[in-house]
């Protein structure tokens, strides 16, 4: 388990509120967690606030949203006090984000190579030649066979799996110390998913950095991450080591596990989750 000197991110009592015409909606409520040099999974159903939490850390929430926290510390930076200019130098360079579908998150009118080099040109003032060399090396690192050819392709010319590997190389070229991956493999086929995850796994271990892995797939998070945070209706209901997920205590986590059809434990009828209003009160 990570000790204090290894902590990359500390979030204490973070809330995200959206003012609407019919009053304030709280999407995330009093969420606290720390991320060390580990793979930490955030699991929850749609609307549980998992993506909103990930975005609030990078201050990428919509403009009308209100983020409150008693502490948000990323390495030496106080994210609550950082100016927009400081945030710009952090985003992409020190905290990187991988999104779900490369079809929508890559720029369709720029070649793949240009997009990846842009990060180092902007953040590290690398020369174009230097940027190109590093981009090609990075593409090779994510197992792209012919980097020279792929460099000049546009996003619509690559497959989904290759697109997601391009995303990975774009996010990792600037050597961030924290990666937030928001459903990075949900749009991919099973065999491709395996490939993308093992590249991500290797890079996180090799560079000794932190990963927040947001997903709705229990089996995937259980097998990929070290620790799991389970969110329900904007709250953290349980934090547990991934290996101990089967011994989870909270009825919501238990309900989710039992609702899952499984090849190893077949049952005739799946259990249906009964939502208890008491889960909303902490």
């Amino acid at each position: 388990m990570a000790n204090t000197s290894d902590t990359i991110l500390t979030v204490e009592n973070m809330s995200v509120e959206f003012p609407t015409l019919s009053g304030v909606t709280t999407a995330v409520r009093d969420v606290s967690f720390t991320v060390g040099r580990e793979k930490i999974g955030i699991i929850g159903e749609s609307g549980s606030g998992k993506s909103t939490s990930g975005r609030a850390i990078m201050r990428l929430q919509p403009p009308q949203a209100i983020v409150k926290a008693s502490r948000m510390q990323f390495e030496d930076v106080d994210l609550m006090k950082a100016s927009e200019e400081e945030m710009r130098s952090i985003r992409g360079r020190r905290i990187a984000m991988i999104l779900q579908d490369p079809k929508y998150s890559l720029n369709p009118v720029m070649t793949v190579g240009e997009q990846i080099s842009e990060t180092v040109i902007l953040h590290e003032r690398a020369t174009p030649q230097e940027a190109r060399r590093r981009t090609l090396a990075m593409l090779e690192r994510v197992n792209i066979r012919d980097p020279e050819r792929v460099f000049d392709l546009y996003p619509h010319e690559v497959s989904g799996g290759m697109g997601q590997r391009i995303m990975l190389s774009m996010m990792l070229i600037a050597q961030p110390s924290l990666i937030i991956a928001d459903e990075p493999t949900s749009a991919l086929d099973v065999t491709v998913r395996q490939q993308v995850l093992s590249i991500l796994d290797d890079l996180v271990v090799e560079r000794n950095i932190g990963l927040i892995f947001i997903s709705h797939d229990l089996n995937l998070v259980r097998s990929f991450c070290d620790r799991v945070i389970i969110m329900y209706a904007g709250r953290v209901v349980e934090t547990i080591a991934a290996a101990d997920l089967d011994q989870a205590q909270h009825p919501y986590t238990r309900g989710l596990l039992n609702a899952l059809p499984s090849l190893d434990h077949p049952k005739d009828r799946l259990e249906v989750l009964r939502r208890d209003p008491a889960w909303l009160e902490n």
Partner: protein
Amino acid sequence: MSMIKAHHLAVSYGHGETALKVVKDVSFEVQKGETFGLVGESGCGKSTILGALAGRNKQWTGSIEIDGEAIGQKRTRAQLAKQQLVFQDPFGSIHPRHTIGRTLLEPLEIHGKDRRQERIEKVLTDVGLPLNFRYRYPHQLSGGQRQRVAIARALILEPKILLLDEPTSALDVSIQAEILNLLKDLRQREQLTYILVSHDLAVVAHLCDRIAIMQSGAFVEVATKQQLLENTVEHAYTRILMDGSRGYVPRRRKEAATVAAIS
């Protein structure tokens, strides 16, 4: 008695030189009351088979028999009503500006059925929705409720076969469990025959008796549910898909295991 018989079925898109054969020569039979699964990755042709069976895609060769009746490229209304499709995304497959009642009425109008109000009420009860939902619009429903509407719309013509195209992939785990249970109940109560398309082997193994694993337009293996559960499938590709539904298999740990096994 077999409900669906497909013999040397091949389906293609496009004409002339650009024609693309998506399904290449598959044969299968589905018994009455059985659930047959089709599993494979994107682009392998699993949804295209459903399209050909449902009469959406008419560019097929080979022979199809449904309920003992040979089916041609042109079908009568009664033949079309015998099998109905349920799509993956309930957000995209229901008309956003029609009330649920209106959505359910449309198939009845097209097929000229009588006792319309009665049929709508019955089908809503069948899928476990309150009757006043007929006055609602899709955006006033949750994802799971919307998928129930999609199933109700398929059931309202009293089909013998439901063709389910990834019916739970867009839903949360807890909602998926509700829909899978509903499909099991309906199969028993209405004596329906299902063909279920999915990429998740755990879902398929839960509902199906026999499962065809597809790769680039052909079956690589037809396995029974028992084979999947006991892990005695024959084809390597099936194994890959099975590992996928269990989650992530780290390479390093795998290598470490082999090293440990050798030393």
